[in-house]
């Protein structure tokens, strides 16, 4: 099979850029590290759009490129798979990622770790790109873990902040739990089929099955849940806000959290093959969507609100996926990438304008005058997120609500609740930050508003571009729908997008309207009321702070593990086992002393020798 140049460029450009940046720019001109990297972003974006265009016309490829590990007839290959789903997500990731790179140049300009930041950032990008075009599970795992490593390095980028270190560690370890599940799934597949190419696995699975296939599906879901922050394993994501804002934007919009959903979409033939697993995924997704959406309403840090919002949207994607609408889930993944990137970058602009690394809604307010441009972008993304027609978020959210309608009333309730909550928290944030009189936050004269100002053009332009996408990418929805279904793996019908329905439109819009109205009432009509109420109920407040107690459970489990390690390493290994061995030497000496073995008298020794020989002879003769 002829491999198009674009495929090679996807790997070569970032690798070469990283090598140049590391070996030439970092030592000689660290402030210019971003130049080769931005060039590589441009190349990768062009290449991925080229591939998406090719895939749109029905072209696709799935071919091994080279051997990774091989012994006897056991082998694992590097390969490339380009199909509709892969290239659609690839194009989104490449373009959104590239724009965030441009933004980061402005955001990180003053940071002493500028060049380190760009190296890690681009490696992150490379890992994500590599994952999207993998054609087998082991290679997917390689880049999957690469994404995990880069997120670790970037969340903990400001190593001097204890919270950043803790969040980085937590993210990596929680992701490793998912990686463990993924690894075991791969081991089972490898054992059953001797190969992990998606195509072969799905073909062989269809006609011969496997004993542990159900477990494989479940483990893949656990892996996806840890990466894509589904309910029990979501908690690392809000904490990951400790990294610089461009990192959050990249993680939430383009890389990292989309990886889990993509894994599920990729292995959908396998997942749907297992009875009840899609149902479980939908249930977990529904719970996550509503749970995180509700928590987002209580957050005060700008980035934390957005983080919980991401968790909620990932829940919606999982819900759609579980209900068999892979196409809707992937479409939402793409649209979410657009508007979430804008929201994060706007939050970054606000914090940047205030001269801080993070901003709290109790500290900012009434920014509409000083930051009108940011307001415009933020509002565009907010209406998109809320699912208002005719903006991008509407088209994908509509598909999910439609899937829930088909699924049944319970799913519908969850989907609409999540939609409503989404509209609520995002408009609450919009009102408080840009319109609110800043009085309701209750902060006194000690509040320091700084001198809010617009960010420089370099940071503004990418945001504007992304905001256009968040507004108008809906026009692309039919095209994306066609792209998704081309060159698909088996069960392509799950990728076809649903048709427009007035019922769904009405329900979705009503849900969004409800959230919007509630937010308007709470922030503009009766400002400060909810803050008063929350101060009056400290018990509820602390419950919300600990995510309804789940965070306490997690830290208790971690503490338990730590105690176990302390017991094993201290009491068991050091004191008992090694203590026993260490005491054998003094014990020998004292036994020898007691038996007068060390008196130095030759006669004693001779007697012992005689006794020993006699004993041995006795044994030998018996």
């Amino acid at each position: 099979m002829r491999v198009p140049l674009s495929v090679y460029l996807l790997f070569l450009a970032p690798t070469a850029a990283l090598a140049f940046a590391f070996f030439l720019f970092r030592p000689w001109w660290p402030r210019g590290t971003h130049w080769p990297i931005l060039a590589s972003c441009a190349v990768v974006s062009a290449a991925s759009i080229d591939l998406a265009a090719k895939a749109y016309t029905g072209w696709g490829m799935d071919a091994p490129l080279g051997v990774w590990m091989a012994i006897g007839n056991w082998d694992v290959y590097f390969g490339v798979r380009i199909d509709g789903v892969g290239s659609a997500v690839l194009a989104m990731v490449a373009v959104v990622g590239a724009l965030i790179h441009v933004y980061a140049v402005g955001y990180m300009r003053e940071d002493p770790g500028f060049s380190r930041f760009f190296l890690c950032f681009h490696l992150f990008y490379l890992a994500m790109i590599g994952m999207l075009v993998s054609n087998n599970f082991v290679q997917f795992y390689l880049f999957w873990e690469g994404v995990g490593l880069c997120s670790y390095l970037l969340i903990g980028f400001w190593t001097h902040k204890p919270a950043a270190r803790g969040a980085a560690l937590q993210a990596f370890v929680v992701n490793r739990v998912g990686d463990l599940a993924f690894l075991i799934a791969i081991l089972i597949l490898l054992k059953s089929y001797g190969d992990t190419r998606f195509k072969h696995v799905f073909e062989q699975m269809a006609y011969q099955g496997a004993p542990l296939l159900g477990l494989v599906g479940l483990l893949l879901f656990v892996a996806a849940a840890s990466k894509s922050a589904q309910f029990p394993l979501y908690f690392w994501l809000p904490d990951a806000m400790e990294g610089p804002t461009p990192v959050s934007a990249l993680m939430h919009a383009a890389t990292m959290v989309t990886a889990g959903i993509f894994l599920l979409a990729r292995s959908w033939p396998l997942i749907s093959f297992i009875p009840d697993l899609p149902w479980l995924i939908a249930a977990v997704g529904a719970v996550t969507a509503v749970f995180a959406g509700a928590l987002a309403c209580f957050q005060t840090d700008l980035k934390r609100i957005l983080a919980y919002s991401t968790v909620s949207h990932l829940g919606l994607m999982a819900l759609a996926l579980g209900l068999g609408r892979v196409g809707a889930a992937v479409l939402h993944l793409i649209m979410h990438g657009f508007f979430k990137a804008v929201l994060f970058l706007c939050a970054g602009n606000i914090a940047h304008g205030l001269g801080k690394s993070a901003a709290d809604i109790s500290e900012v307010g009434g920014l509409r005058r000083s930051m009108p441009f940011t307001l415009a972008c933020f509002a565009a993304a907010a209406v998109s997120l809320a699912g208002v027609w005719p903006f991008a978020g509407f088209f994908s959210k509509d598909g999910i609500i439609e899937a829930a309608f088909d699924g049944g009333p319970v799913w519908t309730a969850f989907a609409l609740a999540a939609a409503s909550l989404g509209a609520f928290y995002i408009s609450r944030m919009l009102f408080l930050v840009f319109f609110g009189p800043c009085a309701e936050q209750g902060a006194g004269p000690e509040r320091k508003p700084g001198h809010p100002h617009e960010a420089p053009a370099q940071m503004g332009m990418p945001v504007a571009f992304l905001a256009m996408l968040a507004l108008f990418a809906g026009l692309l929805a039919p095209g994306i729908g066609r792209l998704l279904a081309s060159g698909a793996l088996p069960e392509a019908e799950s990728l076809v997008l649903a048709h427009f329905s007035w019922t769904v439109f009405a329900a979705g819009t009503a849900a969004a309207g409800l959230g919007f109205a509630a937010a308007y009432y709470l922030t503009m009509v009766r400002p400060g009321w909810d803050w008063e109420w929350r101060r009056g109920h400290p018990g509820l407040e602390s419950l919300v702070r600990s995510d309804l107690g789940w965070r306490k459970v997690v830290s208790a489990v971690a503490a338990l593990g730590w105690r176990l390690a302390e017991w094993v390493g201290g009491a068991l290994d050091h004191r008992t086992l090694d203590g026993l061995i260490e005491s054998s030497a003094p014990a020998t000496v004292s036994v020898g002393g007691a038996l007068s073995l060390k008196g130095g008298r030759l006669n004693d020794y001779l007697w012992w020798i005689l006794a020993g020989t006699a004993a041995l002879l006795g044994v030998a003769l018996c």
Partner: protein
Amino acid sequence: MLTALWLVPAVGGILCLFAKGRTARYTSAAFAAAVLAYSVWLSVPYGAARGAWGIVEAGPSWIFGIRYHLAVDGLALSLVWLTALLTVVCVALSWRQDFSAGYWSSFMFLEAALMGVFLSRDLFVFYVFWEAVLIPMFFIIGLWGSDGRRHAAMKFFLFTFFGSLFMLVGLLALVTIHHATAGVWTWDMADLAGANPGGRMGLAVFISLVIGFGVKIPLFPLHTWLPDAHTEAPAAGSVMLAGVLLKMGIYGFLRVLIPVFPKLVWDLLPWLGGLACLNIIYGSLCAMQQKDLKRLIAYSSVAHLGFCLLGVLSWTPEGLAGGSLQMLNHGITTGALFMMVGFLYERTHCRGLSDFGELTGRAPWMTFFFGWAVMASVGLPGLNGFVGEFMSLAGMARAIPLMAFVAATGIVLSAAYSLPAYQTVFWASSGAGSASPKVSDLDAREKVLVWVLCGLMLYIGLCPTPLLTVLAPSVAAIVPYGFAP
């Protein structure tokens, strides 16, 4: 041709002893480099031979069938490379230290003895070299170690000697049993292969050999010498201990236990594999609460060697190759880690986790490379550790799946012990009385050493096939003994 591999360093060791002052260091460097060059060159005749046993060198039979018999196959060759490479690294790494001639000559003798172990095909010769390894190592720990060196050296010697005695008795019994059934005296591994001594006597011999090799691996619960020895040894000593000496145990499994006792190994697989899993989990848990950087790495070795053993026991091509490759990987990665701890110790005379902090700005290269090696050690795909672990696990998943799944938890645990330690040393803010101000970044010599090892990590991680090709004939020769599916 093979004799040179152990004779040259031995001669070098003797010359070092007579050399004055700095010349000892140059002598050892010259000899170590020569051995490395020669061992790399060996791949040419080895490749030309195209057999499992590429190069053979055998003398006439002596009493009781003992025969000087050396041979090299892919497995032995890869370990010869590892030994030669790490010896060069050790010499270069101690370059600035003002050690007496004995230090340099000890490393030469150590290399000689290790080469002998990996090349011997005769069990008697094997045993002689095996014991010879102890002597230079005893001196390296006992004379040039840190504060608790005497105790650690004594413990190391007694412990491993205790294991060796079991091994000696086991080997004697094995040869005697074979004589009783086959009627010939032979110590040759090739002749003893497939002997399968059965009954209670066979089991007793098997267990004593497991103890003999298990002490070296080290297999739980025979591992407690290791943290002390690794911690107290000088940096180069730790590199050799972790990098090469531990592999002798796995090598014993591959060369003696599996070929000679295939049936027992297969029957006892749940037990041995269980011990390997226990090594992984227990070693990781112990590592998690260590306060001393060297002890932490030492316990992580216990865990990593569990992966090697697991792969080897799986008796599948990918498992055997993965386990063997993991021996090299662990040698390179842990070697690099111990080396960098050595650099820190050289500058500050501290090893405690909390003695450091805030090194990102002060020593960026060290932070970078240490992080790199830590990532290789936690098995990040793309670096070498993953390839070995993954192939070992893939092999075990075919033999006893549950065991592979249990062992796989090692990847979570390894992150849980390595990264907090890394963060404490390099990222965290330094506390009062911190040694960090004394830390300077890597100099050119140190950087070259680390680049070589870290480059190998990346190369093996992405392109392990050349090494796997070298290992393939040895693996193919072991698989037929197997009862595996």
